[in-house]
């Protein structure tokens, strides 16, 4: 067993799936099942949560048995994010919150300053905060210093499918924060990219668009589940170092020399 440990809870899947953008709720539920994920995110901002107007879809998502990770997607100020987190805690009876504070409207890039401020406030109020952040080491250290125990750096901006854009930064985070659960969140477009993040030693991957907007979402969800398993297994098994020169896996000694000659002809 190699569980993912977040805020004292163990999960066997290392994929976290978003619940937006699917062609239908049924396609979403089938994708969740096919992915074998155990944590799903959901956003309330636009559903008029104070009147519980999204309750029908929330109940269906709850019915999957996955742990719910409400998010503050769409919030641009600390106050908005904190208010929505409070409402989410009340509705879903969970202190877990995926904290998003949008700094730029076009690429939905996190606002690092607002993020730290909101995280500090939410930790003070008893939340278990999983902040969606950029891959900046100092920002990540600040988030840890205000009490976050899990970090979710981006691979690239939300919905772009660009994969791991700044591998140097991501590697630095992994090396410098070896004991902190790190989840690559956003920008993952292909299972190979998710696999790569896992091979680099990231603890999990969170994604949404790549599955939801696939022509066959459930099939893509399954592909991501498999890729993430493969990447984790590869990381645990220990990847070989790349080498400059080819090294034959069978010894040259004993190989008939005429074989070499026939190749040269």
């Amino acid at each position: 067993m190699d569980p993912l440990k977040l805020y004292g809870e163990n999960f066997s899947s290392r994929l976290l799936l978003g619940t937006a953008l699917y062609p239908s709720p049924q396609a979403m539920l089938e994708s969740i099942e096919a992915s074998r994920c155990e944590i799903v995110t959901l956003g309330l901002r636009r559903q008029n949560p104070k009147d519980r107007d999204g309750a029908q879809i929330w109940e269906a998502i709850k019915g999957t048995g996955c742990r719910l990770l409400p998010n503050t997607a769409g919030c641009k100020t600390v106050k908005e994010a904190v208010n929505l987190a409070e409402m989410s805690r009340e509705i879903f009876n969970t202190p877990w919150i995926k904290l998003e504070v949008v700094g730029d409207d076009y690429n939905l890039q996190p606002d690092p300053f607002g993020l730290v401020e909101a995280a500090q406030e939410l930790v003070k109020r008893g939340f278990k905060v999983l902040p969606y952040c950029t891959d900046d080491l100092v920002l990540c250290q600040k988030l840890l210093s205000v009490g976050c125990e899990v970090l979710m750096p981006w691979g690239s901006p939300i919905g772009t499918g660009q994969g791991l854009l700044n591998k140097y930064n991501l590697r630095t985070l992994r090396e410098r924060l070896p004991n902190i659960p790190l989840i690559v969140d956003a920008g993952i477009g292909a299972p190979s990219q998710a696999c790569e993040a896992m091979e680099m030693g990231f603890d999990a991957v969170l994604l949404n668009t790549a599955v939801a907007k696939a022509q066959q979402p459930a099939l893509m969800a399954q592909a991501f589940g498999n890729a993430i398993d493969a990447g984790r297994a590869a990381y645990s098994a220990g990847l070989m170092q790349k080498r400059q020169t080819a090294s034959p896996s069978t010894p040259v000694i004993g190989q008939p020399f005429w074989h070499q000659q026939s190749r040269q002809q």
Partner: protein
Amino acid sequence: MPQQLSIAIAGAGLVGRLLSWRLLRLGHKVQLFDDGDPQHSRSAAHTAAAMISPLSEVVVSERSIYDMGVSSLAIWPRWLEELNVSAPTPVHYAAPGSLVVAHPADMAELEQFYADLRFHLGADNNARWLERRDLYDMEPDIAGQFDRALYLPDEAYLDNRHLLARLLEEIQALGGACFAHHPVNFMPEATLGEQALEGFDCIFDCRGMGARQSQKDLRGVRGEVLWAQTDEVQLRHPVRLMHPRYKLYIVPKPGNRFIIGATEIESQDRSPVSVQSMLELCSALYTLNPAFAEARILELDANLRPSYWHNLPLIEHERVPSAGAKAQNIVRINGLYRHGYLLAPTLVEDVLARLPDFTHPQTDTV
């Protein structure tokens, strides 16, 4: 003529009206009940932009929606011709095809749209790429903003509010009885007030969101639209704007009016349009042509699309024991989601074809 049937229809939205009208034309007796005032409809059909766009919609759904939509594209002109014969002003209907555009920075969205069309339709995909010059010929007022566009031939749109009013006139002209503020309940027996609905060969439940109390798997998907008016911009085609986060459309309507829609939010919320949505709708309009900046906003509207979990429509027949003399034949038609005008004619024709099954006294379920 085959046997004359006596039919009750609950819900005077698009399906209820079309079905009433077609049944009356076949010589049947129809009573149409609505819980509101059909003259001031609050149905999704009143809010909708009323495009008949099988290609555009297959991208966000599946092949069956396309097939039903193509069939509706053949039915609408025929039906409108019949409706317009005795109309003082004809209901506007046009099938010029539609345009799909994206700003140069979002070109991947347009490429994705095309890839999805190919996936769903294969050889039936007749969408065509337009370069700037072709776009200029086809829709000059937006050509300045876009390098490329997709042209989806045959897609149509109609003036839905005029259509809804015209259908009501025609139903009354053909002798249909229309009852405002008469909610029919299905629990599951159909009742009006305390009384079971009696004496009908078939009772159709076309209530859309009105059926939510009795159908737990029916949900509303909020949509918001904006109406604007200007004579500075002319559009001949419905235009869809692809953007990483919102996919919106602008549909020209008679009288230099345009409808811009629609947001899609998983919520039962029917409160007025939000500022966020208003900003998105206005931005879409403005980026098509900056001259829209001086357009006048005529109306903002928010409504719910009646939808099942798979976002596909359902026709369900049930024989329900009744307190009255005989069991009731109840047929539910619902879940047209964002595809009301695209699917309604095909579904109504399907229902008419199955009428003998629905009204046969021996039938249990179909």
